[in-house]
């Protein structure tokens, strides 16, 4: 079971990418007993360019690059120079009211806590 799945509703996303408006940032997703951790690489984006929304069970992250670019003519270009967007479908075991986000040198780190009832629990044996 995967609690954080790439959003299957690809049409809107792929269309936006085809327009060159957005690229999907590379992601690492891992889990511990208490939370899921999502890291997204969005170089060129600072805290003010981030837009993170949770709607129903869909988590969407948009990162807008700052507009300032170096002076001069762009004579060689490998980066997409587009904004970032990626969305994930969240499983029911995530407490969406307690998601924490932190941005550090172009890497967004999200912590999605598991809801209390989803955490592993020791059962006391009585008697």
């Amino acid at each position, binding site marked *: 079971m*995967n609690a*954080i799945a*790439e959003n299957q509703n690809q049409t809107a996303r792929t269309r936006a*990418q*085809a327009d*060159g408006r957005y*690229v*999907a940032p*590379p*992601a*690492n*997703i*891992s*889990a*511990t*007993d208490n*939370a899921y*951790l999502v*890291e997204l*690489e*969005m*170089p*060129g*984006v*600072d805290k003010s360019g981030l837009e993170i929304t949770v709607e129903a069970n869909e988590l969407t992250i948009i990162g807008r690059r*700052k507009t300032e*670019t*170096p*002076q*001069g*003519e*762009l*004579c*060689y*270009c*490998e*980066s*997409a*120079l587009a904004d970032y967007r990626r969305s994930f479908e969240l499983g029911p075991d995530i407490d969406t009211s307690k998601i924490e986000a932190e941005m*550090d*040198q*172009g*890497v967004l780190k999200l912590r999605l806590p598991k809801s209390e009832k989803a955490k592993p629990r020791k059962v006391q044996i009585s008697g």
Partner: protein
Amino acid sequence: MSRIRNQINQLFEDPFSLTAPPTGFFEGWSPTVDIYEDKDKITVTAELPGMKKENIDVSLHGNALTVSGERKEEEEEHREGENYRSERYFGRFQRTITLPTPVDPNKIQASYRDGVLTITCPKSDEAKPKQIQVKTS
């Protein structure tokens, strides 16, 4: 192995990002690079999200500008847990760019912000365009 898988995944997910960092014979990864030029300087930007500035090295040999270093994976929680997706590269990286004109090695400046390394290389005097006065005889 996981890198090959990532690249294949990326092809399916993101067919428009074939500008992905080229990985040559070098054992490691390479950052994405852009180059800007105006009459006084050449500016190189490299996407290096999630680094510490002390782990980035910039050097110049002749016209070859090299950016290298190491991105360390964070120990903390990630290690012990289960991994669902690993698309980020860690470990050593290196990238060498041949600059189109001679630059002044003593005036190169580098700054690191929001995961982007910006290297400003002022052109050496002989590389700058010169205005030539036309005289009438």
